């Protein structure tokens, strides 16, 4: 029974991946392509935020670190003339390196204090981009970030990235998202994920079974930052312009809302959260000034009625049906 369930799940996930993989066959409208490209980027950023939450601390520096990935990658491409394919991995390394110094002063704290300390150090980073016109461009940010270089596979024509078609971007971001999710999932299932669980439950007891709590927290935060940087780099080279305001604290709040409403306990939670909210945002275009209000209501409703998030809804329904069945029998 359980095995069949697992198989069903795998088939379901594969079907969803294939369906979205084939999406450009059905619609090539630049509008929907754009919506989905941004959605895949947000999924990378949100899933990696959730990965860092598994060890118990909520980081508010995640979005500024995403921005750091974007700035690093854009500057490497613009000033050094590096190709996107080289700039992205370098930007990931640079961001992880900077993240060490962002999180070093935060790590002695826990809980709310960690949240606010990480906010402060993230904001320092953002203010640096505003303040230093050279090289970050000040409040206006960076313009004309080069698109990724063409992908040349022998036998087929080279795939060019440009303003004419969004399809190459769609597939590039889609593949990056799938790989990121795969790696994050495997990390969570590995020993590192189990240590994170123990650290989250009790820092104290974890220390006394020999876990170096501080080091593992840092490792998990750095892995999270690395994936945030992937999202930032993709964002920069797709939109071709980035500004400090793109990574302001409000986006951090939204990403946390996506995670909480989707469900923090399940790997799929943030994916469901991002999916629903991004589509909801498109539906609410006519009343865009009320979007934060609607988000707030949804967040409050979820916290009250479904504290484990939307992803726990099927479970809750089947538990409720089972109860009814027992009551009827």
């Amino acid at each position, binding site marked *: 029974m359980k095995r069949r369930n697992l198989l069903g799940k795998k088939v379901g996930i594969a079907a969803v991946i294939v369906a979205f993989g084939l999406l450009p066959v059905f619609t090539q409208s630049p509008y929907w392509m754009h919506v989905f490209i941004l959605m895949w980027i947000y999924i990378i950023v949100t899933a990696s935020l959730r990965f860092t939450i598994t060890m118990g601390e909520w980081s508010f520096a995640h979005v500024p670190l995403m921005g750091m990935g974007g700035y690093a990658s854009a500057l490497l491409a613009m000033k050094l003339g590096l190709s996107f394919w080289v700039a992205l991995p370098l930007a990931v390394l640079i961001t992880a390196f900077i993240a060490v110094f962002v999180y070093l002063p935060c790590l002695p704290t826990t809980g709310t204090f960690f949240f606010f300390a990480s906010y402060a150090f993230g904001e320092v980073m953002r203010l640096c981009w505003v303040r230093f016109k050279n090289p970050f461009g000040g409040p206006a940010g960076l313009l004309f970030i080069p698109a990724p270089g063409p992908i040349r596979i022998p036998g087929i024509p080279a795939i060019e990235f440009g303003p004419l078609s969004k399809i190459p971007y769609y597939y590039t971001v889609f593949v990056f998202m799938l790989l990121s999710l795969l790696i994050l999932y495997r990390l969570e299932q590995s020993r590192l994920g189990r240590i994170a669980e123990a650290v989250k439950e009790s820092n104290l007891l974890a220390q*006394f079974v*020999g876990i170096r709590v501080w080091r593992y927290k840092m490792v998990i935060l750095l892995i999270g930052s690395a994936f945030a940087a992937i999202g930032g780099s993709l964002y920069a080279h797709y939109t071709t312009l980035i500004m400090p305001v793109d990574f302001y604290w409000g986006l951090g709040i939204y990403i946390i809302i996506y995670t909480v409403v989707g469900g923090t306990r399940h790997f799929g939670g943030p994916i469901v959260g991002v999916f629903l909210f991004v589509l909801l945002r498109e539906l609410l275009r006519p009343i865009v000034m009320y979007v934060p209000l609607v988000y707030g209501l949804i967040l409050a409703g979820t916290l009250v009625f479904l504290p484990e998030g939307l992803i726990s809804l099927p479970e809750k329904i089947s538990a409720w049906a089972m109860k009814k069945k027992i009551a009827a029998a």
Partner: protein
Amino acid sequence: MDEPSPKPILEIRNITKNFGGLTALNDVSFDLHPGEILGVIGPNGAGKTTLFDVITGRYRPSGGKVFHKGEDITGLKPHQIVQKGISRSFQLEVLFKNLSVFKHLVMSRHLHTQVGFWGSFFRTPGNRKEEEATEAEALELMRFVGLEVQGDRLGGNLSHGYQKSLGIAMALGPAPEILLLDEPLSALSPKRVTDILDLIRAIRDKGVTVMVIEHNMGALFRICDRVVVLSVGEKIAEGLPEEIKHNQRVIEAYLGGAVRA
């Protein structure tokens, strides 16, 4: 009882610990000999738990030193102390509330799990084997402390008695040479008290040196070889249980305080 061996496994030397203006421990010294069960007793606020916190690296002492087999281990971090083979349980339930008992014990074997990061990431067959070995050890521990039926229950849902047993099992997970138990008998039924006393004896018989903090003196005196008495942060007596029972200062510390109150 045979003579205590001349070389102590743990030497506590002139330990002092101040919290601001409050002196929790004042110039406490004693030895722990290999293979013994040492009881640490004293009225509330005597500094017993602080002493454990200092030995296990949770607090850095304000003065004094701790030696393990002649090596200075003062001020090491808790995870380093565990690596030296000194492990502890907690007085209050310090558990992973949302993890099952089985997962607790798998985590308690952390130091002895030789699973590499990449092996664990790619789920190599060798890694799977290692994990199975760890799981077998966790089951063994569960059986040893009598929690084999409780394996799937969450730490936070266990009854007080089982939580105590789980706490001891967690401290045994790192396979320590020295085990420090902080009030393992508090608020237990008489039947459970006997069970835990048998468990402590069984742990000693496996070659582990045990140091126990306890309020329940009657029960403690049934198992311990020697007793150290603390009162208001100072060591007021040390000796065999029989001597301690008739020590005038100990009686005063316990009864005197009670009479005045």
